[in-house]
């Protein structure tokens, strides 16, 4: 079936977008409000990237593991904070641009 093939090339972001993207849990006794899905996706991507990058250039894992190195944690937090800030600004910019142009979001 096509599923197996296409899912291999499907990114984690695609999966998360579907599995998490409901904002609120619609059913169930236990509900948890997930933070901004996009932010979660970015955080997960950052974790994946940093792992890949570290392996690529042969950094020892303990040097970058936030739980084992307070210095790394601070840098990590700072990086996350900057990324989040950057995302927020990007979103604002996109929103403004879309508001100024003909936004396709009105189609559905």
């Amino acid at each position: 079936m096509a599923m197996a093939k296409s899912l291999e090339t499907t990114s984690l972001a695609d999966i998360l977008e579907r599995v998490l993207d409901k904002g609120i849990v619609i059913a169930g006794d236990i509900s948890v409000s997930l933070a901004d899905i996009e932010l979660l996706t970015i955080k997960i991507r950052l974790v994946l990237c940093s792992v890949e990058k570290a392996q690529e250039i042969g950094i020892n894992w303990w040097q970058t593991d936030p739980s084992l190195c307070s210095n790394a944690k601070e840098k990590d937090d700072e990086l996350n904070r900057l990324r989040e800030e950057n995302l927020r600004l990007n979103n604002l910019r996109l929103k403004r641009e879309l508001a100024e142009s003909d936004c396709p979001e009105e189609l559905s």
Partner: protein
Amino acid sequence: MEKHAIYLYGITSLDRIIDLNIPGIAQESNLYCIEYQDIKAVVSNVPLEEYDQDAFAQNVEDIEWLKEKAVLHSNIVNGLFNASRTLIPLSFGTIFLSKENVNHFLMENYHTLKQNLDKINEKEEWGVKLFCDINKFIETNMDDEKKLILEQTSDMSTGARYFLQKKLTTNIEDMAKNKVIALSQKLFNELSTKSCERKLNKLLSREATGVPHDMYMNSVFLLNINNLESFEKTIENYKKEYEKTGIHIIHTGPWPPYNFYCI
């Protein structure tokens, strides 16, 4: 197992045969069904200490945990979807405290669930995203507009021309973006004619997608399998026509219809 909660993956018709002989999201419990009239919920047990309100809220903050479990959830739901071809795929983290509560949920929502099952019967979800490298698009697809700028400024003094050209260059970027948006709308409309339902989702940032270009369209379609060929053909045609202009169209599927049910 210690005290447990019930994790719900999806809902299908009672007559659909699915393989239950696989572990759930917590490896120690296999899948099983809770039936109500002619529908059934596919569930598994999960330890309460990991999935109760507080523990779960805390666990989703742990990115590694969330990633692992969300992917597991997705894989299990895919398996159920492939086997049943008719499945309401629930979101990650739909958890009940007891079987009775699941039963109550099925009973309360029976008619809505039936309507949704009828709608998505034998259909699949496909996602289509359009990205654009806007600089490349300006380079390759905005010659008329650029020529116009040059013509408009040809008889000006050097200084005035410099400033006006700078302003117009910004305009060109806006014009290019509008052109890409129009193209996205055209593609969306064309694909819509080949689908049962369609939706436009929020545009995602570069950080979230990992694609180094801006996203211009994030669409999902509910497809009758018979229409898949012509759906994909349309996408291929667009890809071919615009491949040298910085437009990237990425389509994925088949997905369980996460975007096309409503309870």
